[in-house]
């Protein structure tokens, strides 16, 4: 296998002796990750800040005195610009009020029934009329949406309680019973939802796309340029050439996928700050889980590289190879998406042996602090079998004069 070693060295030298290639393959993606995530985080947080800081414009029609007191008591009048008006002037300009909400000039319109207080006071028996408040807002406007939420939780609730106290005196009579909720959660699983949903999909996607760009050029591109045949004239076996190529390509694309994943993990807090998402739990990281994760990633990459090599070698040029590879990309994306929505349920062991899908499930298990040796081994077994098949097919293709020389 001396020949294979030399080929690996040469393939790695092609990238690592070329500063431009190092930059485009390994440094630029990391920078981009930070820039994109930082930008998303920044934009989101400035949008959220803007919405929080906005002073809601609220018009209240026919407000009873008791309501006005609640507004001052809750401090709502300091947060929002509340203006009171009477039924008459409201009815005269009803269309204008609604138009203001529609076009974002006002955020909320609260209209009390004309005889709100008297109806409330007159209530005696079941079936009697109860008074109403109509609240108008525009849920396609961020400001109006927020004004509605704040009004409901802060003012409307408080006012309801005030009136309930008037009617019943003792609020606990209404409460009837208390509910105490206890969350029983594994410490290790807390805060893993975000990562275990996103990471398996991202890893599968990154691995395939980096393997795709590198392999298509290194196999179909070399065949097209006539440089692959020069290697066939060397006094080494074709299998050595295949092994050398595949190992080198796997190293290159694993590195590239790792750069993506690590920079994504590091840049994620930038985005989360903006989204206001909770802390990401990284307590799943330990020696054995990292080894399992790396093992899965390396083998999955070998699978992709050997699959893509088997396809690329049969294509006569890079253009044909890219066309043949495109549908596979879609299948891989689908398998990744499927794992996004199958977390948390228990699966039969054989499902972990399914290439791509099962591998992504294992990554998901590891990220959610639920790593299991049995599913890891099932995934490794499935991968090894598939890799052997595709390496065999690639070697066969290298030995075929029809494929190599169009003979």
């Amino acid at each position: 296998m001396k020949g294979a070693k030399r080929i690996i060295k040469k393939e790695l030298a092609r990238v690592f002796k070329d500063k431009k290639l190092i930059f485009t393959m390994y440094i630029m993606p990391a920078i981009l990750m930070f820039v994109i995530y930082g930008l998303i985080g920044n934009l989101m947080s400035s949008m959220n800040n803007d919405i929080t800081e906005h002073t809601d414009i609220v018009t209240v029609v026919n407000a009873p005195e008791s309501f006005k007191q609640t507004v001052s008591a809750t401090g709502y009048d300091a947060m929002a610009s509340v203006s009171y008006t009477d039924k008459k002037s409201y009815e005269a300009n009803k269309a204008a009020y609604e138009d203001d909400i529609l076009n974002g000039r006002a955020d909320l319109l609260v209209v009390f029934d004309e005889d709100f207080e008297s109806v409330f006071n007159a209530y005696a028996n079941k079936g009697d009329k109860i008074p109403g408040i109509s609240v108008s807002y525009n849920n396609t406007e961020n400001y109006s949406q927020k004004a509605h939420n704040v009004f409901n939780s802060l003012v409307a609730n408080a006012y309801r309680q005030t009136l309930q106290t008037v009617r019943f005196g003792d609020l606990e009579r209404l409460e009837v019973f208390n509910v105490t909720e206890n969350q029983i959660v594994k410490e290790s699983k807390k805060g893993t939802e975000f990562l275990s949903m996103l990471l398996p999909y991202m890893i599968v996607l990154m691995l395939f796309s980096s393997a795709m760009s590198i392999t298509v050029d290194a196999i179909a591109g070399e065949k097209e340029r006539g440089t692959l045949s020069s290697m066939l004239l060397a006094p080494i076996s074709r299998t050595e050439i295949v092994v050398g190529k595949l190992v080198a390509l796997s190293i290159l694309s694993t590195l590239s996928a790792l750069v993506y994943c690590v920079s994504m993990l590091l840049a994620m807090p930038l985005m989360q700050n903006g989204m206001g998402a909770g802390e990401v739990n990284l307590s799943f990281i330990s020696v054995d889980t990292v080894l399992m994760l790396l093992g899965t990633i390396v083998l999955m990459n070998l699978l992709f590289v050997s699959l893509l090599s088997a396809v690329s070698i049969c294509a006569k040029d890079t253009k044909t190879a890219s066309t043949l590879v495109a549908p596979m990309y879609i299948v891989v994306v689908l398998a990744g998406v499927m794992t996004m929505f199958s977390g948390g349920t228990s699966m039969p062991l054989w499902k972990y042996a399914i290439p791509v899908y099962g591998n992504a499930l294992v990554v998901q298990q590891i990220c959610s602090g639920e790593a299991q040796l049995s599913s890891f081994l099932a995934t490794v077994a499935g991968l090894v079998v598939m890799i052997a098949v595709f390496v065999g097919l690639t070697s066969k293709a290298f030995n075929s004069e029809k494929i190599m020389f169009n003979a």
Partner: protein
Amino acid sequence: MIEIRDLTKIYKLSNKKKAELKTKDSEKVAVSGVSLEAHPGEIYGLLGPNGAGKTTTLRCVATLLKPTKGEISVCGFDTVKEGKQVRDKICFLTNEIKLDPHFSASYMFDFFGGLHGIDAETLSKRKEFFFERFGITDFKDKKIEDLSTGMKQKAAIAVSLVHDPEVIIFDEPTNGLDIITARVVTDFLRELRDKGKTIIVSTHIMSEAQKLCDRIGMIIDGKMVAEGTLSSLLAQENAEDLEDAFFKVYKRVMGEEKIS
């Protein structure tokens, strides 16, 4: 030493190929029953029109293709059963096989030297000699993609000779080269012949074959139709030069109407 015995190579045609060649046959006989011997210290020329089977024959010698029938031995090794040994004895140069353009000539020389298992000292001596001989010393660290066509060809020749092969196989050696580079190549082939190497070239350029080759085999339509030294071929066909002789043979084999 190259011995080809009764070489036949038949290609199976795909439907696409059939359409391209406008034929209904599912097979194409590229080479049919060709036998020849090329000896150390001689340049053997395979002469023939495009598509006659020259490249196929040479590719079979270089172990890239397997004969459908017949046997080829190079320095006593069978090209099918002992492919690795054969590849260690030969160099094969053709337009379609190129050096990786991302690397320098110097890197490629070391890389292929390594694949042939040559020790570092011998390698650096040979590199110095060949790079001087072909005038590429000044460009040895430039990427091959940045070299001119002539320089690329000279680098390819130097790299292909890294293991000091016994047998040199050259498919259309001067194709696409300017006359100065072409002259460097043909001069070098003569030099190698004088060192006792076995050389086989293919060409369709009559003047080149006439000046360069010690013995010539004419291949037409996959068959060896005439073979001998230049003088014996000229005497045999009663011709003034090789081109004249070739057309006489061609007319006899293909019939008068094919030429006009």
